[in-house]
């Protein structure tokens, strides 16, 4: 209810979506630095794959030599070589 309200208010007031919503914000700098904010939890991670649970569904990264440089409750810094970023669940999210 509150989520919907804040989303609508945000739309009316022309807030950027990362301020109004609580979906993940993903910042990729070059190919070797990824910053994910507002994720929910880590589902699985190996050196080649990282799966995260977010409000927008499952988010997955594939690449080589992944290292979680810093893991905080709302923030995740990933190092390594990124190959792809996908939402494998497709459009089945809310």
């Amino acid at each position, binding site marked *: 209810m509150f989520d919907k309200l804040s989303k609508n208010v945000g739309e009316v007031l022309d807030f950027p979506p990362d301020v109004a919503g609580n979906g993940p914000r993903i910042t990729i700098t070059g190919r070797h630095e990824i910053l994910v904010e507002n994720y929910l*939890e*880590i*589902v*699985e*991670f*190996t*050196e080649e794959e990282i799966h995260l649970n977010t409000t927008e569904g499952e988010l997955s990264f594939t690449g080589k030599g*992944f*290292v*979680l*440089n*810093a*893991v*905080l*409750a709302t923030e995740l810094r990933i190092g390594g070589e990124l190959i792809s970023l996908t939402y494998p669940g497709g459009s089945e999210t809310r």
Partner: protein
Amino acid sequence: MIARFREFWHGRVLFAARGNQLARFVNEGIQDGVVFYKTQKSERGLRAQVQIKDFARLRRAARVTHTRVRILAKYGWPFVAARWWRRKSLLAGILIIGITLASLSQMILSISVSGNTTIPSQQIFDSAEKLGLKTWIWQSEVDLPKVSKALVEQFPDAAWIGVDRQGTRVEIKVVQKIRPQVPGEAGSLVASKAGLIQELMVIQGTPIVHEGETVKAGQVLIKAPDIIENASAKPKPDAVSKPKQSIPQPVPAAKGFARGRVWYSTEATIPLVEDKVEESGRIAKGWGIKFGSRVIMVTTPESPYPQVNQEVKNHSWLIWRNWRFPVEVVSINYKELSTVHLERTQAEARSVAEELARADVHKKITPGANILEETVRVLPQSGGVERVRVEVEAYEDLAVYPNP
């Protein structure tokens, strides 16, 4: 850099985790407020770093997810400090050694005397000690120039006494007066050089020579008085023993002076034709940078003159104690040399030779001597040279105390 320093300051624990629910283990940890760093997964499990205070909080996550956690390494200041704290006595020992060395290096630990031939070293040590220069005292407590000045005054046989400190070692360098060596004549007055005695005044002692006599260097002029010892003298039996006044001890040394004429002479030879290398007065300056034994010249790398006299100056910065900055600035003055062809007339050559000989002879004359007469003789020359001899007759005191 700052992040690295913070990492070191707070301390990190590197651990390995094994289990089937490693992702959940991380999630549970995050929920408890743990921050994971450099988390990596391999076939053998998970490796991650956490701060020291976070490590204990991992316990619940490990229990819930049945994960076994093993510490691999500990980094950072808290661990280093703990290790050193366990070795308190070692630290204290190092500190004590450091303080001891530092304070010992500020003291005078050894004193040596060199250059003395007849003055006993012990006598110099004793005098120095009375002036405050001794071992096991602080270097700042002694004024070394003052000590050397006072020592010269105390030892009339010393021409110069230098007190030099190098680190904790003090060296007293003595230069003794050069006097005629006449063994067995200590206390007598002898002639310092050959001359003709004209005035003899005896204050104490026996004159051996008379006025008008020619003496050689080292010849005894006034003999020291003998000490008269009357072995048969006995105090009168009925004499009332009075408290004795302090009687001055007889000094067994001759006193007096013997003035006379002394002759000095020097010769100088000047050729009529001469090729001479002299500085022309032109100077080129250059500077460069010196690193170790390597010199890189910034300006004037080569001498601009064919014949040159180089003057090299090193400017180095003394940073701390005797540690120098490894890079020095070098400045070089190239002084041009030129060959001068001189042709003199006979009169010119003579006057040059005379000047030269006169300057030389005046160096030999005892300071303070009265110069009576100066004669310049032109000697028979051969092969284009002029020979001149300058003879000086002086009137001075010849009597000195010899070295035994």
